[in-house]
């Protein structure tokens, strides 16, 4: 039988990020999203709708000239003054509302991203656990199969050895008779 040929060269291991035909991937290849996809309970819609904002910015006028042209000049100037103050207040409240809405949406989008990121992290953890289990299964199965082959071969070799010894004894005995 002679000495067996040398083992084949091992070569380089698989390169990260590429499929390897020599070493097919054990288990799933990538992280899968949960059924239905990633979902967040964090709403990023406008916290104050346009109708509400209109009601909020609808500031009452402090003084109205109800006597019309029969009133005094003072009534008219007070009306104009009150109107300008109302408009200024309305604008200021509108700006405050807009700032609140903007800040709210910035925060909501940030929080939603963090929520989704946490879910993705958990999916990645799950993927790691699943792949680890797949690797373990294949390793254990390979060790089991190869261990069985080792033992089987050990028996075959020992049996041949013993048979050879017995043959040699018989031949020696016959040789002695001759």
């Amino acid at each position, binding site marked *: 039988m002679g000495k067996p040929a040398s083992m084949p060269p091992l070569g380089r291991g698989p390169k990260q990020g590429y499929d390897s035909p020599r070493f097919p991937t054990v288990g799933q290849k990538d992280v899968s999203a949960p059924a239905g996809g990633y979902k*967040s*309970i*964090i*709403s990023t819609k406008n*916290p*104050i709708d346009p109708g509400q904002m209109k*009601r*909020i*910015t609808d*500031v*009452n*006028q*402090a*003084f*109205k*000239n*109800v*006597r019309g042209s029969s009133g*005094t000049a*003072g*009534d008219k100037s*007070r009306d104009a*003054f*009150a109107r300008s*103050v*109302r408009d200024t*207040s*309305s604008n200021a*409240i509108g700006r*405050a509302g807009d700032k*609140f809405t903007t800040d*709210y949406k910035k925060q909501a989008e940030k*929080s939603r991203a*963090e*929520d989704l990121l*946490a879910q993705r992290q*958990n999916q990645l*953890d*799950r993927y790691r*656990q699943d792949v680890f*289990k797949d690797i*373990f*299964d294949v390793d*254990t*199965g390979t*060790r*089991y199969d190869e*261990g*069985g082959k080792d*033992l*089987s071969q*050990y*028996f075959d070799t*020992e*049996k041949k050895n*013993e048979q050879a010894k*017995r043959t040699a*004894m*018989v031949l*020696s005995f016959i040789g002695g008779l001759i």
Partner: protein
Amino acid sequence: MFSESSPQTNVPTAYNTDNTFATSFSGPITQDARQQDVTRNESMSRAAFQGDTRQYNQQQGKGIQAGGAGAGYRAGVQADTESAKAQAQAQQDMLTKQADISSADLQFQERLSGERGWVQDLLLDRDETRNRERMAAYKRYADVNLGQYEREIKEAVAAERRKTTILGGLL
């Protein structure tokens, strides 16, 4: 499943649960909406009092010899200024109320989602622990079978050797 003690004097509220994976936030916590309405109504009533009722009551005129027309006008403008402030404050109260509700909603959503994320993490840890136990059982099964097979092989090899020994004795 959940229980909460009644707050006592200087005793912190206790929270108990026997569920490892339940969330604990109750819902958006907002200011008292009724109190906010009361505040706004007060602003509105102050505005109404300080505002144009004076026009109907003719207080812009001399009245009971309270001063000249200029003084009456200035008093009216002063009243209008105060009224306008209260009117604006009333609307500001509306914005504050709405902002408070929205902020409470968002905060609740953030905190609940955060807690859910942690709980999901706990569930994964639990599942991994369970799975490691099952994997150990799988490995143990393989080891037991291999050990049994090894013993049987060794016995078979020993039997072959005994055959050789017996033959040697015969010859």
